[in-house]
Every structure is written in C-alpha cells, then in structure tokens.
C-alpha cells in the first residue's frame, strides 16, 4: 500500500510517503510560514524524490484537526481533492493522536496539546493499549487548561505532556501535577507525518465528499447565533 500523509493543521507542516512497511520519505518544518504556498511544492518534491506518481498512490491520509482553522482546511482540501479525483482512499486522523505518538513507548498516559488561546487547549488523553499502540482514553476536546489538569489529577500514573506550545503552559502543569507530569523533550514536539501515515494505514477509509475537518469548535458567529435563538 502506497500512502501520502499530509499535516498542515498547526504550525508544523509535515508530508510523508510510505510504501507498505517502509517510510520512503518525510518532510517536516516547524516554521511560521504559509502552508498554502509551501505544502503542494513539498508534496510534489517528496513524491518525485521517492519516485511515487500520484496515480500509484493507494491512500491519502490527512491530519483532520484540531488546530488552526485555515491550516486544517488547506490539508483537508488537498487530501479530499487528490483522493476523490485519483479515485483513492481517504483517511482522516486526529492531529492530537498524531502528536501523541511521541509517547507510544512511554508506558503511562500521554497528553498531546495545542494552545487554543484564552487559556484553553486542544487536547486529549491517550494510553497504552496492547502491542505498544496508543489508544484514546479521553476524547479530543477544547478545554480550559486548569479544568483539564484537575481532571488529570485523578489519574494514578505518570503523564507525558507533548507539544510545541508546552512552554506556554508548563508552569501551570507542574503547579497542578508536580512530579506526576513528565515533559517531552525538544524533538518529541513535532507531530511526525510518518506516524500519521502509519496510523492511517490501519483505519477505515472515509466518505470523501462528506469528510470535513475536526474543528472541535463552532465558528464564533454560529455560537452567537445559537445564543440569540435561545438554544
């Protein structure tokens, strides 16, 4: 199975090409640059260097969010269009689940997080299942960091925190969890597109036309409109 994996859901941009048991190539940057300009040239270049033609792909795997609304949409639009027009399978994977893979041999719980502004985070709780594969323990969500840490305090095991936004929140995390919290190292914080491709190979394909990003949040105008309707 030949797979193209695309992640533009946050600041880190990642592309990978996998062929069955092998990661043929992987491209990651962690830069404040425009995904819309850079991602298609990166895909073009990586596919050319790995010698995989668009028509030879079997599956496109995309990080479906949460993250930057615009960023997620760029990756999802490209993945949907490629998969649909090439008549290939499409798989969407949580951007948090991809990031959590840095903790797959950790042994305890893993908490990936992206900053979501106003002291909120996009996060979820992942734990070790069988065969060293991570499983979702608590679903992805957007939550006030303090509320989330109070919930995590109830857990008995050590918790590994991962994400490039950790420096913004690590003080609060230590304040709540003390030595129960383990902070990832610098090279753990970039979600790896090869991991995205690997997980994507194991999942069921999506319906391409109806596939949408996982924003975890309504648009602000929608929230206000629902309020005005008394809902």
């Amino acid at each position: 199975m030949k797979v193209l994996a695309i992640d533009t859901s946050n600041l880190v941009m990642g592309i990978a090409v996998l062929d069955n048991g092998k990661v043929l190539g992987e491209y990651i940057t962690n830069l404040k640059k425009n995904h819309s300009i850079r991602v298609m040239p990166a895909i073009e270049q990586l596919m050319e260097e790995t010698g995989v033609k668009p028509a030879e792909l079997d599956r496109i795997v995309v990080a479906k969010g949460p993250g930057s609304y615009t960023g997620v949409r760029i990756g999802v639009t490209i993945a949907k269009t490629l998969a649909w027009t090439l008549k290939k399978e499409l798989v969407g994977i949580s951007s948090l689940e991809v990031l959590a893979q840095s903790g797959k041999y950790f042994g305890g719980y893993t908490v990936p997080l992206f900053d979501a502004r106003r002291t909120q985070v996009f996060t979820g709780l992942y734990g070790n299942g069988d065969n060293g594969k991570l499983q979702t323990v608590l679903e992805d969500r957007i939550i006030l960091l303090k509320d989330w840490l109070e919930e995590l305090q109830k857990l008995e095991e050590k918790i590994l925190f991962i994400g490039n936004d950790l420096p913004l929140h690590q003080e609060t995390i230590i304040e709540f969890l003390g030595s129960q919290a383990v902070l990832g190292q610098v090279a753990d914080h970039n979600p790896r597109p090869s991991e995205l491709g690997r997980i994507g190979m194991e999942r069921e394909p999506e319906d391409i036309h109806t596939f949408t990003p996982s924003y975890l949040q309504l648009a602000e105008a929608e929230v206000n409109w629902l309020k005005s309707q008394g809902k």
Partner: protein
Amino acid sequence: MIKDEIILAIETSCDETAVAIVKNGTELLANIVASQIESHKRFGGVVPEVASRHHVEQITIVIEEALNEAKLEPADLTAVAVTEGPGLVGALLIGVNAAKAFAFAHGLPLVPVHHIAGHIYANRLVKEMTFPLLSLIVSGGHTELVIMKEHGTFQVIGETRDDAAGEAYDKVARTLKMPYPGGPHIDKLAQVGEPNIDLPRAWLEPESFDFSFSGLKSAVINTVHNAEQRGQVIKPEDLAASFQASVVDVLVEKTFRAAQQYDVKQVLLAGGVAANKGLRQQLENRFKDTKFDLVIPPLHLCTDNAAMIAAAGSVAYQKGTRGDMALNGVPGLDLEAQ
C-alpha cells in the same frame, strides 16, 4: 484537426462554491454553483469563517457535478483555472488548493484568474468582445469602470472611493429592515415606488470616473431618522425608488461619459448588481440608438460563478499565463497587474 481547448474553473472567492467547464473559451459545458446564501442569511451578511467551512464541505461534490454534467473525464481537460483573488482569503484558499491538487493529480497546467477579469469575461459567453471596450462592474465588493484595449489587458479608469454599490444597497436595506441580501428587495420595492425624495448624487470632480456611495447611504439613514422624529411616514417604496435612482443615475451617466471619452465599441455590464432591473433598464434606455453596443449577460452569469473564470482563464491560458504549485490566494489582487 485542432484539438478543443477545455478548461475546468474553480471559484470560491466569497460565498458561492462554483465549478464550470468551458470549451474553446465561449461554449459552456457545465456551470455548477453551490450557494451558501441560506446559511449566511442568519447572520445578516457573509461570515468568512462560515463561508470557508462550507467551501470545504462542497468542493469535491461541485467538481464532480461539473464533470458529470459535461460528461467529461479529467483526461479530457486542457487546463485548470482558478480565482486567485480578490476575495475573502480563507475562502480563496479552498479553491486555490483544490485547483492545485487537481492539476497536480492529472499533470494539467494551472491558470490563475482575477475575479473581476472573470466578471468582465462572463460577457464573452454571450457575445464576442470587440475592442476597445468599456466594462461597468458592480457588485457587493466592487464598483469599477474598466477599459480593455485587447484581450487580457485591463485599465481601471474609475472605482469607488468608499462603499461598493452593492454594499450601499445592503446597508440601506438594513435601515429599511429588509432581510439579507438587501439589493434584490430594494430593486423590487423601487419598481412600485416614486423617486420623489431628494437624495444626493455624488458626481465628484467633473473629470472623474470614480464613485462614492457612503454619503448617499448616510443621507438615506438621516432621512429615515428625521421622519421618525417628526412623526412623519415615509413610504418605503418611495425611499427605495429614490435611493435606487441616485445610484443608477450616477452609474449610468459616468458609464456613458466614459464610453464617449474613450470612444469604445462595446459597453459590458458585469457583477452581481447587474441583476438589478433598475440599472438594466436605465442602461438600455441611455445606450439605445447610440453607436455603442451594450451587452448585458443573463442573471446567472452576473452573480459569482466559475463559467466566467473559465472564460477569462481561456484567454489567460492562450497568453501563456501559468500558476505553479506555490500559487496562493491573494485577497487584494490588482487587476491592472494582470
């Protein structure tokens, strides 16, 4: 045998997800528009984030519909054209990235198109262009007079200094408590009213082809407030007719003067407000029995669509305009730099 040129075009600059297929620059094979207007009505205007979300939901469905309607496969296509700008950046990005992915998947050339160039070229689907020509573009975001001396070159000789005409319509409609989008409601109401309320017409400097509608908009709001304070009743249909007359008088007169000064052969109406009955009628009256050939496209080609992007894309393709995989959406794209 010369091979047909078949262009698939994508347009997502505002609140319509549109895909069209045009053969040899003028023959419409498919023109699909998924409108989001029902969704944005709730908010009284287009909400950019909501528009972008709808575009992602619709994009592959609309491309598929267009190919099905034209009974074509990607292999039959010559190029992919897409609106590069101007427009809402988040919305533009969906069309641009879908177009890039589609072009990459099938090894097709990519042709970036200016949205306003598209509006002008909608006319070529109705009638062949003769140069030099003048185009009046009126929409929710634009009010411009553009001279074209040949295919693919644009000279903006006049533009709005504040609100676009369509914007003024929407704001006045809100004052009259009409639902969004207000333009069609005012136009309808104006048909049964009398233009008997004195409202200003912004002619600006004698030589200028620029427009200004914010003063008129304020005058309408003041008229309504003053009447309310004095306990007077203003007939909404008369106010609508008076407002419409002010807008249309200026648009039509400046267009006519520009046509004379630049000695053009054709005058083309373009943009969403071209659906306005009052504007169509007065243009037709003004240009009747003159040497100028007035062309007004049918309504479905005036509002945002991708057929116009394909028509403009065909000319750009023939001129050798190409985009690469780094093509981006440009919200403030300049028409004259095309």
